[in-house]
């Protein structure tokens, strides 16, 4: 699904440049649930941004679903993002004047799906995250966990190849974190490929594979026995 070879990225900070990714090689198979771990500054967010086509690597190859991702125009990148990727952010990033349902329907809008079908699909995905009855509520009327579930529903609505979650539990307490992870695990169980960036050990262990990043290189890449979040959720 994802193929990365010798990926380099550096940022210019005034006169000196900061080498963030120093040759990353890794691949993700279909249906995997991968945790990318590392302390702050290890380059994990940069890696995720490059994977999410929000940023471009200086060097190296990136193939997503057999499509080489290289020198994309903004328009092309937007289309690929829409088609291939679903994003879940730490701070949810819901549009505050749109109801939960409209938020979920937004990626479908950019796919030019008709309004009726959009609504139907959005409600269906809200149902899956257990928030069907909250469809008409604004984000400000939802709790943090609910917001993140709406965000996950939104990411899933476009039926992406890969779900990219950047610290999805970073702004949540542990109970809600487990609820969200439970949801992510269930989505993964259905065969979806998911990448989770986190710095929390327990969250990482709820994935099937942990990739450790340190100072821009992968120091560890291991399969783990998945801890089911459901065990912590009543």
């Amino acid at each position: 699904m994802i193929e990365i070879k010798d990926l380099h990225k550096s940022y210019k900070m005034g006169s000196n440049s900061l080498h963030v990714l120093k040759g990353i090689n890794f691949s993700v198979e279909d249906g995997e649930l991968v945790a990318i771990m590392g302390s702050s500054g290890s380059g994990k967010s940069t890696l995720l941004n490059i994977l999410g086509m929000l940023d471009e690597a200086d060097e190296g190859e990136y193939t997503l679903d057999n499509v080489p991702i290289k020198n994309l125009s903004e328009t092309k990148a937007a289309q690929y993002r829409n088609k291939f990727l679903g994003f879940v952010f730490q701070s949810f990033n819901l549009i505050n004047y749109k109801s939960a349902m409209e938020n979920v329907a937004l990626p479908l809008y950019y796919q030019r799906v008709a309004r009726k079908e959009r609504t139907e699909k959005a409600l269906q995905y809200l149902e899956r995250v257990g928030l069907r009855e909250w469809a008409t509520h604004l984000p400000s009327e939802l709790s943090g966990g609910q917001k993140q579930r709406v965000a996950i529903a939104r990411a899933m609505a476009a039926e992406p190849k890969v779900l990219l979650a950047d610290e999805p539990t970073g702004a949540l307490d542990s109970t809600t974190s487990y609820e969200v992870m439970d949801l992510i695990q269930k989505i993964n169980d259905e065969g979806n490929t998911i990448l989770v960036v986190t710095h929390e050990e327990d969250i990482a262990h709820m994935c099937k594979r942990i990739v450790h990043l340190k100072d821009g290189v992968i120091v560890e890449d291991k399969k783990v026995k998945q801890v089911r979040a459901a065990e912590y959720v009543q």
Partner: protein
Amino acid sequence: MKQLFDGNTWQEIFQSIRKNKLRTFLTMIGVFVGIYIYIGLSGASKGLDNGFERQFETIAKNSLFAWGQRTSIPYAGFKTGRQIQLKLGDVEVLYNRVPEIETIAPRNVKGIFGSNPGIITRGLKSGNYAVYGDFPDFADIATKKIYDGGRFINDEDIEQARKVCVIGERTQKELFEEDEDPIGGYIRIDNIYFQVVGVHKFTPGGGFESDSDIYIPFATFKKLYNTGDNVSWLTIAAYDDADVVKVEEDIKATLRSIHNVSPKDERAFGSFNLGEIFNKIMGFSSGMTFLSLIVGIACILAGVIGIGNILLISVKERTKELGVRRALGATPSEVRNQIIIEALTLTLLAGIIGIIFGALTLKIIDALTKGGDFPYANPTVPIPYVIGSLLLMVVLGVLIGLIPAQRAVSIRPIDALREE
């Protein structure tokens, strides 16, 4: 372009407009006020325009009056201070020498300028009214509205020096009973019987005329008051395309040569150039129209710039939202178009509301000034002006929308989404 005709786009736009009420309100108020002022001003100036037109509708717009006065320069053996008397024969000479003249109507009068008015009697009723000796041509220069059933003086009346007269509304009221038809009736003017052939409707238009004036044929006046070929003054209408100031000069020059007056004598003939005054007023009023156009456009411009300004701030405020949209698959052109269409929609919406309110205001002003002496009538804004202003708003709205739209596109999604 495709985006413009997509219902989904409009849903997005209207949602964004509806959900940001304060922003929408603040944005629109600038353009609203701009177009409101534009409509109000140009309507008002048009109303003033119409008002002046109405004031002058009873008289030819390029007419002037000329009369004899005393000379101020000795000439050709005549001493200074000689009273000049216009003669009927002057008319022919003027026609020949000043080709711009369309019509000349010589008039004689008794009852104004210090002469005694005629004593008019009918049975036991009597009154003093000004009596004019007129040619039919006079009706071509100053429109006299004659009530149904009557007529103005005609050529036959002149030829035969008929004793007929046209009386004023007030004269009718004072000499005839209310249910009496004055047409065909007889009145005595200075003891001579005259048959009434018409009643003229008085229209206020300034000058010395009133609703009691009596018009009789020039030839009859001549016999009645023994005025010979004397003429009190000439009422002259020039052709529409003539320069009235030049015509006035030519007429005076001609009169000077007829009456042996020094070509340099400015005081021998008096004149009143209605056309010149009319042109001045019209110039003032078209100046007003121009001014209102400039002010209105400036107001619209200011309003539209306000929209751009607020949208620019709102784009900054919505950085994160736009970043999310980009991450979810909005292309740069979709984001750009959304902002432009938002700007355009706000501009047009505000503009249309402004036009409606402007029109209502004009209607109210019209209702308040109706029937008054104030020269103000039927304030309207020509449709091309309204459409023009709408087009201007569309163009400006799009142009001004480009600035925030470009800003929105230049935000990279990764920067927009960066935490904190």
